C-alpha cells in the first residue's frame, strides 16, 4: 500500500509498450508502483517476499518477482504486465489456453503464472514437461494441483 514517506523520486520506463513516468519514494517496489500508483491491479501480491510468484511480470522479456524489484532497477527498462498481453483487445494465446484448459480456480495465482509461461515460451518455444515444471517452480498455486496449468502451457508450445 501507499507509503507515507515524503521523499519521492522520478522514474521513467516503458510499461506495456508505452513510456511512463512516475514519482514514488525510492524504496518503492515495482509491485507497489504498478498496483498503488498506476492502478494496474492484475499483478497480485501473495507474499511480498519473493516466495509465491503471484507478482510475476516481465522485465525486458524476463520473468521477475515485482515485489522484490526496486524502482531503481526498472529505470529505463521495459515492463510487461498481464494487462499488456491483450492485442487489439483479444487475449494472448497463453491467456486463452489457461482459460480453456480449466487452469483457473480462484485465479489469484493466474496472472503471475501466465507471465512466467510467457517468459518461458519467449526463450524456449518448445519446452519439455520438465522444463515447464522447472520454469514454473517459483509460482505457487494452491487450488489447481498444477495438472491443468501444465496442460495449458503444453497447449501453446510450438
Amino acid at each position: 500500500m501507499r507509503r507515507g514517506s515524503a521523499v519521492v523520486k522520478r522514474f521513467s520506463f516503458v510499461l506495456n509498450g508505452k513510456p511512463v513516468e512516475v514519482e514514488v519514494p525510492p524504496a518503492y517496489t515495482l509491485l507497489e508502483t504498478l498496483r498503488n500508483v498506476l492502478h494496474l491491479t492484475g499483478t497480485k501480491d501473495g507474499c511480498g517476499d519473493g516466495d509465491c510468484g503471484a507478482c510475476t511480470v516481465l522485465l525486458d522479456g524476463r520473468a521477475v518477482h515485482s515485489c522484490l524489484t526496486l524502482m531503481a532497477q526498472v529505470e529505463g527498462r521495459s515492463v510487461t504486465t498481464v494487462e499488456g498481453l491483450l492485442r487489439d483487445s483479444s487475449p494472448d494465446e497463453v491467456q486463452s489456453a489457461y482459460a480453456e484448459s480449466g487452469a483457473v480456480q480462484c485465479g489469484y495465482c493466474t496472472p503471475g503464472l501466465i507471465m512466467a509461461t510467457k517468459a518461458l515460451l519467449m526463450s524456449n518455444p518448445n519446452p519439455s514437461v520438465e522444463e515447464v515444471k522447472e520454469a514454473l517452480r517459483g509460482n505457487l498455486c494452491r487450488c489447481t494441483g498444477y495438472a491443468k496449468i501444465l496442460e495449458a502451457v503444453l497447449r501453446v508450445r510450438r
Partner: protein
Amino acid sequence: MSSEEEILKRFAAIEQAREFYIIGKKVSRVDALDAVLGRPMYTGDLVTGDFLFVKAVRSPYAHALIKGIDISRALKQRGIEAVITHRDIPGENDAGSLIPDRPLLAVDKVRHYGEAVALVVGSGIETVEEAIRLVDVEYEPLPVVKDPFEAMKPDAPRIQNRDNIVTHFKIRKGNIEEGFSKADIIVENTYKTQFMDGLPLETEVAYAFPEKDGRITCISSMQNPFDVYNKVVKILGVGPEDVRVIQAATGGGFGPKSDETPIDIAAYACLAVKKTGKPAFAVFTREEATTVQSKRHAFTIRHKTGATRDGKLVAWKSELVADTGAYISKGHLVIARATFHCTGPYEVPHVWADGYCVLTNNTIAGSTRGFGAPQAHFAAELQMDALAKKLGIDPVEIRARNILRPGSLTATSQRIDDAGLEICFGKVVETARWHQKRREYEELNRTSSRIKKGIGIALLYHGNTLGPEGEDFATVHVRIEEDGSVVVQTGLTEYGTGALTSLVIIVAEILGIPASWVRMERPDTSAVTSSGPTVASRTTVIGGRAAADAATQLRGRLAEVAAGLLGCSPDELVFKDGVVSVGGDRRRGIGFRELVSEASRRGVELRVRGYYIAPPTRWDPETGQGAPYNQYTFGALVSEVEVDTETGLVVVKRMTAAYDAGRVINPLGLLAVIEGGSIQGLGHALTEEIIHENGVVVNPSLHGYIIPTASEAPEWIEPIAVESPGRIGAFGAKAMGEIPVVLPMASIANAVAHAIGVFIRETPLKPERVLKAIREAERKER
C-alpha cells in the same frame, strides 16, 4: 394435473433420469476469462481514492498478562488518526466464529502468539507500521502450555476460565472387552499429525467505507459473508441495516476463510470507518496470515485394534487428542468428525473411542478442508496396513474383508445403504494394477539399493455436509429477467472450486435452457437472506437442492402460462434447448424467452426464493450411537512413490483416485477439486508443517512453510468418478469439495512403508524423518 403436481412429477423424473440435458456435461467457469486477463476482481483491486490503513498490534508472547496499554506515543505520530483498544469497541468485544470465547482485541491477557491487542489507523502503511512500534503494551509473561497432554494434567495452568479439555467425545459400540477377547492378533500404535495451514494464496483483506446514509459497506474475501456480517454488527454495536458485507472474488478458501480471521479483518476495517468516518483498508501480510489463520488441528491418535486370524476386525479402541490452540474456533466439531470416522470405512462390531479437544497456548486451529478427517484416516489406514503386515496378507485383502458395504454398520451403528465404497475400491485396485505393481516394486527393491519404490492404498468414508455441525440449510434466489436471462444469487460463495457453477447447471437443467443464459451474482448481505455457511462441501449437495427448489417453482409458473398458450396440460410440457414444447415436439412449442416475456406481460412473478433444509441427524451423545450424517461420500486412493534412501526424499509418481460423487453435476468442477485436493494432501503428507516453539510460530512464511510446486506434482493423477446416488443431495450428489484432501497422507505413508519396509507414524514425511526411519530399520535388521 395441477402445475404443482406437474413440477413434482417432472422433478422426480429428472432426478431419476440417466440422460441429462446439461448435468454432467462440461460447463466452463464463467469467471475464468476475467482472471486470465487480470481484471480487478479481488478486494485489494477494488480500493480507490483516499483511504486509511488499519493494522493490528500483535502479541510477541504466547501467554501473558496485559498490565497496561499506553497509546499516547503512537497517537502523537503524524498521520495517525486513531488507536483502538478493547475499550474503544462500541459493541461486544467478541470475534469467536461460533463460540464467544475469543475477544477481537485482548483485554487483560493474551493466550497465543500474534493475538491482536490494539489497532492502529492512519494514512500510509509505513506510518501505521511505525506507530505500531510505539504502542506500549506492558506484558507479564505466564507459563506457556505447549502441548495438549500437558494441558490435560489436572494442575496445568488454565488457558481460559474453563477446563482445558473442551470436549470429551465418545463412541461406545458393542462390548469392547468381549471384542478383544475374540481377537487372534492385536496391533497397538500411536500416530501424530502436525499443525498445517490451508493457505489460500490471497491473504485476509477487507475494504470498508461509509455510505451517505451512514451505513458501512465492507468488501472482503471470505467463505461466509453472513457470519462476518452478524459478528461485525455486534462488534460495532449497530443495527442490522447499518452494515452491508459483500464478498469480492476470493483467492482461495480451504477453511481458514470460513473461520476466525475473516471476522477479524472485516471488523478492523469497519471499526476504523466507524471511528474516523473515512474509508479504511486492512490486509494481512503473509506472516500475519500464517501466524493467526486457523490451522488444521495437530492430532495424537492411539489405536488398539484386534482382528481374527483370517483378518476380520473384531474390536477397535481409540484415543484422539486434538490441539485446538488458545481458542476453540470449530475444535469441538472437528474432534467429533475425527472421532466418528476413527475406525476408517470398516465394519467393526466393538468400538470404544474417546476424542478430546484441548486448549493450549498454540495458535488457533479450526476449520481446514477435511475437518479432522485427514488425521483420522491417516491413523486408521496405517493401522489397517499394520494389521495386514502382521497377518501376512495384502493390504487390499484386509480391506476387502472389512469395508463398509450395503447393510454394514458404521462405528456409530449407522446402516450404510449404498455400494459406493466397494465400487471405488474395486476401480482403483484394477486401474492402478495394484497386484502387479506391488510385486514388481518388491522385486525391484531387492536389487535397487538407493531408490526404493512403493505403492500404498487408503479408503475413506466422509459423513456429508454439516450433520452434527449445524443447521444444514440453504437459500437460493432465482429470478428471470424480461429478456429471458436467469440470475442466481445466494449467500453461498465461490472461492475457486467452481461450486457455484453447479447451481447454474441445476437451474439450467430444470428450466431447459443453456447454462450460458444463467448468471451468478455476487453474495451481498443486503440482497439475499442467509444461506448458512459455505463449508463442509455443502454447495452442490444442499445449495443444489435449494437451487432446484427455486428453478422448479419458476418452471411451474411458466408451465401454467405455456399450457394455456399451447392448449395442453402442464405435465405434457418438455423444457429443453430453450424451447417449451408439448411432448418435445418443437412445432408445438414456444421459445423460452418468448414465454418469459408473455408471462411477465401477464404479471406472473418470476422471482423466487428456493429453500432446502436437510433432515436433522440424531445420535446419542453418551455413546455416539445413531446416524450423525444423512449420507456418506466414499473414496479410494492408490499412491505410488519413490524413496531416495540416501537423502530420505519421497517423490510421489502417480495417484489413482476414485470418488463416489453420488451424481456428477459439474465434471470440470469435480476434476478441479480432485486434482487440487490431491496435491494439497500431498503437501500435508510430505512437507507442510506449522512449527510452534514455546507457542511461537517460527516459520510463518512461504519459504518456511513449504507447499507443493509444479515440480512436486505427480506425473499423473488418474481421476475416476463413481456415481452411487446419495439420499439427500441434489440429483443424488454427494459432498466432494473437501474429500480429495483426506486420503493422500494415509495413502502416501502406506506407499512409503511399502518402499522402505517400516511405517512412519508421524507426519510430515520430511527427509530427516524418513532417513531416521530407514536407519533405525537397518539397525534392527543387523
